[in-house]
């Protein structure tokens, strides 16, 4: 029953509409809109959960309690935060490039949302099951670099400028190992469709066959989301808040929001590609597939947070050195080994 709950709802909706005599074209359009709104709501809900989770975990790690006053166990804290952010003055400094300055916080949201359209959150649960899903995801994800850069540049503040330059250098560089680490998996599966990649892990998760790739993906993923130990873009103790320094109120809130969303995406991607997506381990299929997916995703997110609140920040030259001297060669070596392995296994007939 729980397995196909969302598919069931969609089918039911379609049936209701067709029985009401809605033409097929309209029917599809409405259904697509419903899906997109669902993604939006889903993202916002996840953001609130993550916000609460991050603060709570930070608190627990630091021997504190974290938010515990608003609502039971502080569960309504994200709502209070949003209310506070909305209530704040939207201050626009005189010297900023006003159009870009205001455009960037709105645009920062676009790439993560676009990506959500192709993520399969459960069996048959991708809004759009695109056959070039992985490619599409990376193409869209690269866009957020220029948005961060625009935010920093338009602020007309040196801290913002340094932050945005760091953002460009860091995100562009780390995209390379991020993509290269996935290449091994794509070589094995031979597809860019995310659902097919998940299906390919029916026997064994790719985290076991591609451990190095997973590690590279994990590290590069932290860097892509600008979280400690790679949080140079914000680098609170060095450059105040990087590109966000001049933002206030809701315009500021958009950036952490986008950061959380990209963290969801990175975790979701690692779940899909390395952790078997919605596939149930040990044959425990009594738990619905989408629940499995979220379970795995949140374990990944937890590890991200755990790492964040444990490690110090790396320096900018070390960051680039680590990328180009360690991660990229390692990723290339991984691809090479995967290729050789595939050839050898094929030759001896263990794998077709």
């Amino acid at each position: 029953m729980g397995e196909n709950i969302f598919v069931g709802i969609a089918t039911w909706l379609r049936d209701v509409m067709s029985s009401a005599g809605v033409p097929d074209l309209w029917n599809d359009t409405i259904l697509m809109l419903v899906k997109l709104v669902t993604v939006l709501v889903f993202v916002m809900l996840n953001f609130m959960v993550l916000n609460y989770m991050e603060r709570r975990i930070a608190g627990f790690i630091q021997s504190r309690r974290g938010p515990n006053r608003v609502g039971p166990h502080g569960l309504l804290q994200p709502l209070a935060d949003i209310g506070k952010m909305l209530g704040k003055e939207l201050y626009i400094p005189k010297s900023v490039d006003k159009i870009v300055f205001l455009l960037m916080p709105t645009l920062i949201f676009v790439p993560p949302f676009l990506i959500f359209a192709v993520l399969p959150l459960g069996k048959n649960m991708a809004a759009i099951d695109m056959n070039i899903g992985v490619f599409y995801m990376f193409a869209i994800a690269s866009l957020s670099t220029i948005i961060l850069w625009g935010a920093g540049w338009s602020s007309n503040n040196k801290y913002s400028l340094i932050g945005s330059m760091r953002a460009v250098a860091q995100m562009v560089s780390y995209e390379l190992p991020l993509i290269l680490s996935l290449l091994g998996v794509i070589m094995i599966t031979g597809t860019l469709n995310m659902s097919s990649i998940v299906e390919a892990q029916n026997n064994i998760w790719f985290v076991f066959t591609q451990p190095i790739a997973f590690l590279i993906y994990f590290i590069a993923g932290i860097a892509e989301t600008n979280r400690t130990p790679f949080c140079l873009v914000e680098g609170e103790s060095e450059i105040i808040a990087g590109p966000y320094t001049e933002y206030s109120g809701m315009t500021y809130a958009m950036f952490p929001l986008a950061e959380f969303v990209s963290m969801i995406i990175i975790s979701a991607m690692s779940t899909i590609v390395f952790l078997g997506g919605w596939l149930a381990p040990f044959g425990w299929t009594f738990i619905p597939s989408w629940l499995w997916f979220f379970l795995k995703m949140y374990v990944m997110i937890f590890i991200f947070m755990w790492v964040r609140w444990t490690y110090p920040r790396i320096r900018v030259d070390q960051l680039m050195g680590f990328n180009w001297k360690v991660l990229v060669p390692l990723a290339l070596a991984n691809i090479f080994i995967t290729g050789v392995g595939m050839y050898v296994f094929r030759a001896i007939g263990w794998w077709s």
Partner: protein
Amino acid sequence: MFGQGLLKGLQVTWGRMLSKKQTVEYPDEHIEMFPRFHGRFELDVDKCIACGLCANACPNKVIQIEKEKVDKKQYLTRYMMRIEYCLFCGLCVESCNKDALKFSNVIDMNQYRRSWVRLTLVDRPAPEPTETPEEETSAKAAKDEAAAGSTPGKEG
């Protein structure tokens, strides 16, 4: 081996995540203050002889005393502390020979307005004198000036 320190750090934070939390949830819980805690000032009016030693001991001219002479005895009419300037060093309490001025354990001294911070420990009219000394007014004026510490001169 490289990475050992990283794992060790994760181990420490994991341990802390599960261990007891240190937060004292303040309005619900209160910590017992130590007996010597420098909290809100308390003045035992009956013990105070309005000698002005505390006002003189204060490094920052916080204490203002007004007194009147009633029946050849100094009578404290007003004891005001400008807490906004107070350093909570305890020199006034230490200087008090009669043990009248003391620290309490009250820690809540915050106010909404700066002007409310001032702490008036005594504010009362002098009782009617049983005899009627003629030169009371002039004596009072002189005493007032002496009691307010040294004359308000230039600050530091």
